[in-house]
């Protein structure tokens, strides 16, 4: 696999606290890789290690084929990043903030600033001081700083943070286009799991500093739980019928019958026919698929509603 990011047993300790604990991950070229974890799971520390902002206690990281070490700058020409919050010099305008970053990236054409302002729809705010921007527009400026120099790899910490729904869709489309049309590799952490499931090619789940699982979307489809939910004109009799057919059933908190057997999930039409023939016609019948959020919470062992 042609990898743009590669870590090998990466460990970072701060005193007695192990922030990152033996993380080994691979991000392929042109891939959108989502890095998921609860607050304090080690996402941002991993990103800082990848960007050379912190030294690993042990292990190593490679970005664009170059080992991250002190004084090594070769790879940063081709990397854009946004770490934690999107911050800018408040007294400079949006355009001036981008211009300062352009000058710190020698070789980037002056037109790159105008291009990214247009692409991220910042034109109306280009000459406004960054300190007066709304949170959403400050986030756009942060993304602009990460993207204006056409990087091969972008490392984004919560890129959709603070954006309204339209902004989230816009950023999703932008990142998808970058990966699809320009072959840009995207490594992003996110809390917005619905967005991740629409965007990412591959997911890494980190918890208490350990990488619990890496999987692509097909594997996620395979791994996530599905169940058949149904209600009928007579739920008690219907449940007895299903048990008689050899299915194990549960009752959900709202009284719906849940069947987890593969046979029932794959052939709900057969179940419907048997219920109708027995005089317990279904009033509701559908196959519920566990979404990424539920899958993630189940994997990290956190009950829904107690994630934070």
């Amino acid at each position, binding site marked *: 696999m042609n990898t743009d990011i590669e870590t090998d047993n990466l460990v970072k300790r701060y005193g007695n606290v192990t922030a990152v604990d033996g993380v080994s991950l691979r991000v392929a070229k042109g891939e959108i890789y989502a890095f998921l974890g609860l607050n304090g799971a080690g996402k941002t520390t991993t990103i800082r290690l990848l960007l050379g*902002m912190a030294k690993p206690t042990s292990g190593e990281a490679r970005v664009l084929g170059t080992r991250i070490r002190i004084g090594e700058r070769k790879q940063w020409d081709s990397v854009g990043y946004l770490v934690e919050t999107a911050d*800018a010099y408040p*007294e400079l305008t949006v355009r001036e903030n981008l211009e300062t970053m352009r000058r710190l990236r020698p070789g980037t054409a002056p037109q790159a600033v105008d291009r990214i302002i247009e692409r991220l729809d910042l034109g109306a705010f280009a000459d406004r001081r960054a300190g007066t921007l709304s949170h959403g527009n400050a986030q756009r400026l942060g993304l602009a700083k990460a993207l204006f120099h056409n990087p091969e790899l972008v490392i984004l910490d919560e890129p959709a943070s603070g954006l309204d729904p339209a902004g989230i869709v816009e950023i999703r489309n932008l990142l998808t286009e970058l990966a699809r049309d320009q072959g840009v590799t995207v490594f992003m952490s996110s809390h917005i799991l619905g967005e991740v499931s629409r965007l990412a090619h591959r997911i890494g789940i980190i918890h208490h500093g350990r990488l619990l699982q890496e999987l692509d979307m097909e594997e996620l489809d395979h791994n996530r739980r599905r169940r058949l939910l149904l209600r009928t004109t007579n739920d008690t009799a219907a449940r007895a019928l299903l048990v008689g057919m050899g299915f194990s059933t549960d009752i959900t908190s709202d009284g719906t019958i849940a069947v987890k057997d593969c046979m029932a999930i794959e052939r709900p039409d057969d179940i419907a026919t048997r219920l109708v023939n027995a005089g317990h016609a279904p009033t509701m019948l559908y196959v519920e698929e566990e979404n990424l959020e539920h899958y993630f919470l189940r994997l990290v062992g956190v009950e829904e509603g107690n994630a934070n």
Partner: protein
Amino acid sequence: MNNLAQATWVEFRKACRSKMPLFTALGFAMVPLGGGFFMIVLKDPDMARRVGLISTKAQLTMGAADWPTYLRFLTMAIGAGGIILFGLVAAWVFGREYSDRTAKDLLALPTSRSAIVLSKCVVIAVWSAALTVVICLITLCVGAALGLPPAAPQVFWQSGITIMVAVCLTISLTTPIAFAASAWRGYLPPIAVMILAMVVAQLTTAAGWGEYFPWAIPALFVQGEKLGAISYAIVVLTGIIGLAGTILWWELADQTR
């Protein structure tokens, strides 16, 4: 040095677009204006008492209303006040990156972190020198406006050289302040370090060891104390250690903000 020129442009841009140059210029302008006030008083103390410029109990031991007195006041103020004002400039130039949380944007770039630190030091030095030029010009204008009796050119040259050396010494002492701003990530810790240095400077001067304490040396220099080469070497060494420490900290330390 990798992209030092562009990094310096960026630092100047950031400084010029802030209000800090104006505030520091206004603060430092108090020196010649305060000196001018005393020249007015010294020209006619009785008139100053009558119109209430000074209290009837005021003891006027400063000297006469002339250029040597006025310029001596200026050099003494730069020797003592320069450490505070130039230190504030250094605390702001480095500390603002942490207060504004923009330091992280400077760490994974093709421009080296050493170049960024050096460019900030260039800005501090130029900014401090510019402030000094501004107050010297104000001093000349105020002195001329007050009609101070003409003095020999040598008086001006001598004061100019004293101020220039004192400013160079004081600028050298801003690098440990830059280190404090970087290591403790903000404005306040370096200001606390600066205040501590000033207090220790007073104590060491009172104890007769001031010529060996870096932050006491510029004030002793402008007072005309005979300083040995060791005193100048201590200041230069302090500046070099501060600069090296700041560069090493930016290059090697974990950056968590």
